[in-house]
């Protein structure tokens, strides 16, 4: 399951190799042409305008001589110009194709990584989601993906740099082997210096980055707690602290800048020294008659073209290490344990639920032991129990967020493990106590399970959920955006919108996980009344602390210590001695006691 990080990268590259190869192809061609231009100019200056013999391979010289030699080209310089322009336009075209291909590659790769990570996260298990930090994941999905994307592009840069160096030296050795050797001595020197420099400065960079991070946190804390700062009148203290951090951060960067100044300047000096070395030795060679002035010129041009590629080698190696780390971090997310949505049967669901001897534990903590009960289709079952008694876990097991350790849960007689996960979840609708709403309009939130929202159905759902009137009271009605960018809904409104959302989804089994807690008793009763009047054959499981909510259920289960200790209708349980009757008694007691308290 968990592939290596390079397997992950390979998967993302699928379908994009053509861009990679196109890019590399045009890099090679382009690098070659980028040297042909100066070569042509060198020869033209030297041997056409000047009088030196042609410094070209024999077959090219033959072609030139066949066309009429130096005299012809001097008289018809436009031929040379046309060739030159043709070379440059080819080079420009190669550059265009290279940029195009690598941009396609980069953007596709970024797209693929973002999308596949997103989808893997959406099908990762419930337990996985309970254990992650959103901020950390987002960091991986943005910064790390970007680092890897850039790096893959830089890989093609390596080819460019190396091919430029190779071609330059190929031309240069063609002109003068000894001079090329002299020039080459600086390549390892400059690369080594770059690597050394990058390594040396890295630690200081990190330290300065940290100082910046600390300052940033300091500001963020200050801005996040304006009330604390003002409530204690500590603005001056905050400013003084900020000033300290601000100065420290500034000084660290300034000091590092002073050091970097030397590094950079030396980095710039080395190529100049190389030029001096090559030029002065070249002069010796030329005076000795070993090479011509034209050759010196083109040699110098090639030599100058080397400065950038050589210096970027060090940078690329530094980035390679960073990219490997990022790739590993992304792959960790990609390797999140996945749910199986493919297997299992797709069936029409009526809603007969049965728990048979179900046991379940979280780590070492046993939640249920041999839990058994049935919910006949179309009926309402209510569950009462202390907080932390595992009421919600029953629902989590029913929706297969977790699988039971032993025992069996069936719907219409079929083990839920044999039902396709889509089918199951579409039919088990759970409304949570603190529902999550999306930053979309209310209409979109309610019809989120539907690609083509049916407004009539939306309104029907909100009417049952008793939230239609509140929504139409908003300025923008159903188009009101929920959350940070829009209207903040109260806890009760959120719960009711979530109920409408689950009703809209058409689930055959409806579970309320204490999701009427923020709604007042009257509205609560109306929701239940409307639900039974308007939705036929729906199976309902209600978890609640409120006796009024539970009372009308066809069956009430009292859960205690991981077992069902009582079950029956309200009237049956109210007559039995036991937890249920005690709870009912508490309610009437309180009303009595409050009356006494009011009198004093």
């Amino acid at each position, binding site marked *: 399951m968990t592939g290596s990080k390079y397997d992950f990268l390979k998967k993302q590259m699928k379908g994009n190799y053509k861009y990679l190869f196109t890019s590399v192809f045009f890099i090679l061609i382009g690098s070659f042409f980028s040297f042909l231009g100066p070569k042509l100019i060198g020869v033209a200056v030297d041997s056409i305008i000047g009088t030196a013999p042609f410094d070209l391979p024999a077959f090219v010289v033959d072609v030139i001589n066949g066309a009429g030699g130096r005299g012809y080209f001097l008289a018809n310089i436009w031929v040379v110009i046309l060739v030159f322009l043709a070379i440059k336009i080819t080079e*420009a075209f190669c550059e265009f194709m290279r940029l195009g291909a690598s941009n396609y590659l980069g953007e596709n790769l970024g797209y693929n990584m973002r999308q596949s990570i997103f989808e893997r996260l959406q099908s990762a298990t419930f337990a996985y989601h309970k254990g992650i930090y959103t901020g950390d994941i987002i960091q991986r999905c943005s910064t790390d993906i970007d680092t890897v994307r850039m790096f893959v592009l830089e890989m093609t840069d390596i080819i460019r740099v190396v091919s430029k160096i190779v071609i330059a030296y190929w031309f240069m050795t063609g002109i003068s082997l000894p001079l090329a050797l002299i020039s080459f001595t600086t390549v390892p020197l400059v690369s080594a210096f770059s690597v050394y420099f990058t390594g040396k400065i890295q630690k200081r960079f990190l330290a300065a980055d940290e100082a910046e991070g600390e300052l940033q946190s300091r500001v963020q804390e*200050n801005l996040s707690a304006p009330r604390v700062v003002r409530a*204690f009148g500590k*603005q001056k203290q905050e400013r003084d602290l900020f000033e300290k951090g601000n100065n420290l951060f500034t000084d660290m960067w300034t000091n590092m800048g002073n050091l970097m100044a030397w590094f950079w300047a030396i980095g710039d000096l080395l190529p100049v*020294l190389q030029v001096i070395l090559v030029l002065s030795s070249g002069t010796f060679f030329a005076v000795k008659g070993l090479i011509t002035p034209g050759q010196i010129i083109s040699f110098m*041009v090639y030599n100058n073209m080397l400065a950038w590629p050589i210096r970027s080698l060090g940078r690329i190696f530094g980035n390679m290490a960073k990219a490997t780390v990022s790739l590993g971090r992304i792959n960790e997310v990609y390797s999140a344990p996945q749910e199986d949505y493919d297997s299992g049967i797709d069936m029409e669901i009526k809603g007969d639920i049965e728990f048979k001897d179900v046991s379940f534990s979280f780590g070492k903590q046993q939640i249920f032991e041999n839990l058994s009960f049935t919910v006949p289709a179309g009926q309402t079952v209510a569950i009462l129990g202390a907080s932390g008694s595992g009421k919600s876990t029953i629902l989590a097991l029913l929706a297969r967020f977790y699988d039971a350790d032993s025992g069996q849960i069936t719907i219409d007689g079929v083990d839920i493990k044999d039902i396709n996960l889509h089918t199951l*979840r579409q039919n088990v609708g759970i409304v949570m106590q603190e529902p999550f709403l999306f930053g979309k309009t209310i209409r979109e939130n309610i019809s989120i399970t539907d690609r083509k929202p049916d407004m009539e159905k939306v309104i029907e759902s909100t009417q049952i959920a008793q939230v239609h009137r509140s929504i139409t009271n908003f300025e923008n009605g159903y188009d009101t955006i929920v959350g940070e960018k829009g209207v903040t809904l109260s806890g009760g409104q959120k719960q009711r919108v979530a109920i409408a959302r689950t009703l809209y989804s058409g689930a055959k089994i409806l579970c309320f996980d204490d999701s009427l807690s923020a709604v007042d008793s009257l509205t609560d009763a109306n929701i239940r009344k409307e639900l039974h009047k308007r939705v036929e054959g729906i199976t309902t499981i209600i978890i609640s*602390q409120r006796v009024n909510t539970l009372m009308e259920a066809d069956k009430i289960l009292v859960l205690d210590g991981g077992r069902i200790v009582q079950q029956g209708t309200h009237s049956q349980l109210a007559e039995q001695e036991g*937890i249920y009757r005690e709870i009912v008694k508490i309610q009437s007691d*309180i009303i009595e006691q409050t009356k006494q308290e009011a009198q004093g």
Partner: protein
Amino acid sequence: MDRHDEYALADRFNLNEWKRIYKYVIPYKKHVYMLLFAAVGTGIFDAIFPMMTRFAITNFIEAKTLNGIWLFVAAFLALALIQLYFNVIYTQHAIRIEMGVGRDMRYDLFSHVQELSLDYFNATPVGFILARIMSDTQSLGAIFSWQLSAFAWNLAYVLSAAVNMFILSPPLATAVLLTIPVVALLAGKFQKKLLVLNRIARKQNSVVTAGYNENINGAVTIKELDCRHRINGEFADINGEMRRKAFAAKRVEMIFFPCIMVVSSGALAFVLGMSPVMVNKGALDVASLAVFISYTFTLLDPIETITRTFSRIMGLQANVERVNSLLDAAPTVTDRADVVEKYGDIYNAKKENWEEIKGDIEFRDVSFKYPDSEKYVLENFNLKIKAGTCVAIVGATGAGKSTLVNLVCRFFEPTSGQILIDGVDYRERSYLWLQSNLSYVLQTPHLFSGTILDNIKYANPDATMEQVIDAAKQAQAHSFIEKLPEGYNTEVGQGGDKLSTGQKQLVSIARAILAKGKILVMDEATSSVDTQTEQMINGMTDQLLKDRTSFIIAHRLSTVKNADVIIVVDEGKIIEMGNHRQLLRAEGHYYRMYTGQWEEKRQDEFFRNLHNDK
């Protein structure tokens, strides 16, 4: 200016906005001069180096002599060393300016933000202010250093190369230099387009991040509703949009660079075409021609850089405006000039003139509406609170319980009417005077990075260790602090996140106790902590209330039963007021809340006892 839009574009260049931030450069004038000197020097030297090649060719190679070559090498080396020097001072001064200007701006922005009132923070996302203070200042610092010097350097290079080219061959130089405006125009157009497209791409990038954020937070709901395919599809849309927008920017680059290449080769082709004639006429020798060509090769790069720098500076217009707009944001709670004269401002408090506070509070005909709203939440409200009295404010989450406290603490001022403290309108004294006399405990206990000790001493930095421990003991925080390996010197992490919420709250109560304010505010202090901590806090409340005028905002009613006055708030309005018994007798909102909560509590107790019995 849209506070939610990080990437809002300024419409056009506005010099006045820039003039306002120019003052930040003035202290670094000397560094700017040095930087410009080095930049121009570097540019000129870069342009001289090709002449050295020519010199070598003419004087040694063509003359076929090595006479003086050592002098030449020495001179070249000397030039290289001077160049090294230029490069060093260039970077050093640039960083100095960049960091210095950035630092001064950050300081001013931060100081200004401290003076702003709470309404500004309610209406502005933290990220927005943070970006102003931290990143906009940095970009602007870079303008006056790197951008400015890049401009100078490249301009110097182009100019000295142009001069050299004119020396070599005036007619050819004229012709080549004529291509400069073409390139500049072309580059300018591309750069502007690129800037806009890159912004659009960055904006889409934040949409993608928001998509991740929302759908990771909502992942369980997405599973539960089984709408994964729809959500994946929606993300594919914004993700595809990201690819499209990023590519749109890339496409401009893709066309731009080859275009520049072709234009520059056009210039070269022209030089080449003219050269046989020139050389024939004896107007140019071969070596000079080679140098001339190498200038032509390298001339267009700097021009491209100049236009890029230029468009970048233009692009920072929006940053300048955002910085200025933050500096322009005015506090809504301010002290009159004569009050400042007597009591001082937040940075220079004249504590010697501050009166001792007793804690009598009176609302006199107070009407109030929040600045961003039309609706009055208080109308002609009158209430006298004697020093030492406890006022409780109850209601559902989001019902507007904080309003009265906001007014008492002068985070907001009454729209009309007066609030009197010890019989004097509080606007007659400085807000720092009042706020320095508060002990405040918030719902979410914000701590600051640093040690527990730093945090407890926050409001009272001069407190002795004994006093700190005493406060911690009162807040029942001492025992858990002592158990930590580093004790009071334990680092609490950013926002105090290394401690549990309950521990944070206890520390924040110790902080409030040590602040020794005469007015105590407990703003839903127990709503985010676990049951055990809640009981601890409830247990110490009586001790805290002693000798203080206090306001307790609560959702749980068990905490407020004993308050002298209970104010019930719903939908922003005060709906009931009285003591516990009076309110129960009324059988209204308070009665329903109270019985409901009691029922829940009793049930919980019942279940707990059930287990203890077994």
